[in-house]
């Protein structure tokens, strides 16, 4: 551990020292969907703190609100009530533009169905968050090339998504999620569409990211996968059922 800390350079060292710093915090959030007359409350007051460098899995039966919570954490949706702090920013009062900006600057998304843009090459897909951040093109290209190599796709830069296997596509998605150096990486069932071998590769990558100090929140159905994370949160009917730390 100390060897690694040294090799990670100064800023990583600083981050390691201030570990257990809160990167995100939800406070008593609820979510209610209105379908005509009918109001369906999906989240019933969830409060959680997420710490820097943590690897967290969220579990629970289908329909318990995992994706709903992830959407709120990802600033794609806003809670009906309660507060959500991302870093030092309260997102509850943000307008659409501010939410877009914070998504682009502080969050990385990995979806079950990869969600790459089919017209764009591997490299262009990875660059996309940087593009919306207004990064200089040259620098973006450099970052994207490096990340593609890191997820083992250095030889597929100009390929289109449909020319890649599911596992490869998901690795592109991971590289894309890393490109803007986000505060949190959000993954909603990232291995849900993959066979066990490809799924294992993805999880190995997650382990690596965790070791490098990234903060990861992953939704999964599998206890086995959740085992690999440090902290397991179980939801049931829109409430936190349990919140355990394993390592």
């Amino acid at each position: 551990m100390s060897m690694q800390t040294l090799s990670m350079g100064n800023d990583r060292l600083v981050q390691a020292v201030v570990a257990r710093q809160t990167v995100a915090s939800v406070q008593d959030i609820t979510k209610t969907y209105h379908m005509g007359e009918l109001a369906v409350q999906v989240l019933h007051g969830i409060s959680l703190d997420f710490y820097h460098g943590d690897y967290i899995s969220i579990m629970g039966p289908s329909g318990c609100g995992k994706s709903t919570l992830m959407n709120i954490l990802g600033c794609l949706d806003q809670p009906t009530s309660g507060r959500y702090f991302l870093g030092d920013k309260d997102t509850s009062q943000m307008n659409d533009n501010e939410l877009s900006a914070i998504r682009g600057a502080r969050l990385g998304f990995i979806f079950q169905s990869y969600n790459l843009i089919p017209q764009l090459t591997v490299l262009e897909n990875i660059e996309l968050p940087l593009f919306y951040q207004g990064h200089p093109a040259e620098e973006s290209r450099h970052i994207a090339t490096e990340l593609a190599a890191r997820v083992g796709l250095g030889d597929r830069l100009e390929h289109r998504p449909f020319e890649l296997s599911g596992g490869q596509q998901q690795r592109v998605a991971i590289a894309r999620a890393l490109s803007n150096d986000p505060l949190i990486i959000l993954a909603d069932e990232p291995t849900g569409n993959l066979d066990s071998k490809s799924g294992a590769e993805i999880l190995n990558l997650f382990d690596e990211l965790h070791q490098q100090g990234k903060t990861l929140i992953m939704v999964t159905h599998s206890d086995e996968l959740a085992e690999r994370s440090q902290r397991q949160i179980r939801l049931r009917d829109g409430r936190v059922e349990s919140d355990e730390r394993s390592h």
Partner: protein
Amino acid sequence: MNEAIKHPAVLAVFQRIKLHLQPVYWTRFRKTAEVGIKSIHAHGLRSLLTVLGIVIGVAAVISMLAVSEGASFEAQQQFRALGSNNIIVKSVKPASLEASGGNNMRPQSISYGLTYEDILTIQQTIPGISNVIPSRIIKKDVRHLGRDISTDVVGTTIDYPISRNYSLRAGRFFSEEEMLAQRNVAVISDEVARALFPMTDPLGESIRIDGNYYNIIGVMEPEAYSNLGRSQAGSSNAAPTRIFIPLSAARYRFGETLVRQASSGVEMETVELHEAIIQVQDQEQVEAVGQIIEQILERRHRRVDYAVEVPLALIRQAEESALRDQIVAGAIAGISLLVGGIGIMNIMLASVTERTREIGIRRALGARKKDIVQQFLIEAVILSGVGGLIGVVIGILIPVIISIFWGMTTIVTVTAPLLAFSISALIGVVFGIYPSISAANMDPVEALRHA
């Protein structure tokens, strides 16, 4: 002035403009345009069919305007050649004389047309007439050595070239003295010069008409617009093979009565003057003077054996008809561009629906609503702009083809393609706005869930 520039609001605007000029924005624009081109390219045929309306609209307008512009230019050029201060009075053989004659073989004598007295009356009663140039026009064969050519021999006065804006290619027109002395001098048209003197310089040579020799003292410039310049009742439509001689000489040599072998027998035709150009000092008065001349001639003649032409009125008509063409072209443009615009809106709506998920992804990765609007708007403008560009190319080619194969004058002005192209690009913006905004207003979560 300086105070205004230093106002914080103004400075903020400058700041914004400066920001937008930064290379980062240009790169973003270029990237967005690239994505637009890619997705247009991905649906090649569909995109092509979509812009067809714009292509046809733009091409139709440009070529219609080019043809109309060309026709009006040609007409105006012809009428200008007649002189916008001129009124042209001509002798016309009345139809009643043509019909009569029957089948008796007795020589027939007919007399019609303008007289010297008509011209004198006109000149004396109407103020503001600066000059009158009468002419007699007689068909004659002209010979030089072994060659001969059928020409209109025009007996006229010294001001004829000035009044018609004709200039001489070589030599000079005849003078006052030659006129008074009834000299046998001739100025020949370019066509006659080329027919009779293909190799040699005609100046100083002699030509023979009816046994008399005439000295060539000048050659006219070729006439670009001859159709309306030609005169004389019954003369052919042939090229202006003309010879100009002093009116005095023409009267003296040929008299006023023409004897002709007609189908009905020998015909003696008496015409004093075939044509007179009446120049009016003030252009404003030309049309009024034309009407007065008409009235005078009506009183003096039993039959309508004359015609009064006012080139200025014809110019006005040509201008009016050009304007009408432009209005029609505008209406066609409006309709086809509207249809084209609706096509673009339709395809953009389809594209937005097809790419709902892409929109969701982009939003998740930090795209603002504005970015999404921009992306689809750029795509719509590229579509309509490409359509407009193809339309401009076709619209310029069509008049060229018309000119080559039908010999029509066509004029593509700079403004027509420019305007048509700008409007087509604007169509992209106008009809792209709704689809783009509906794309931007999608809920990111819903969009990501889209199949």
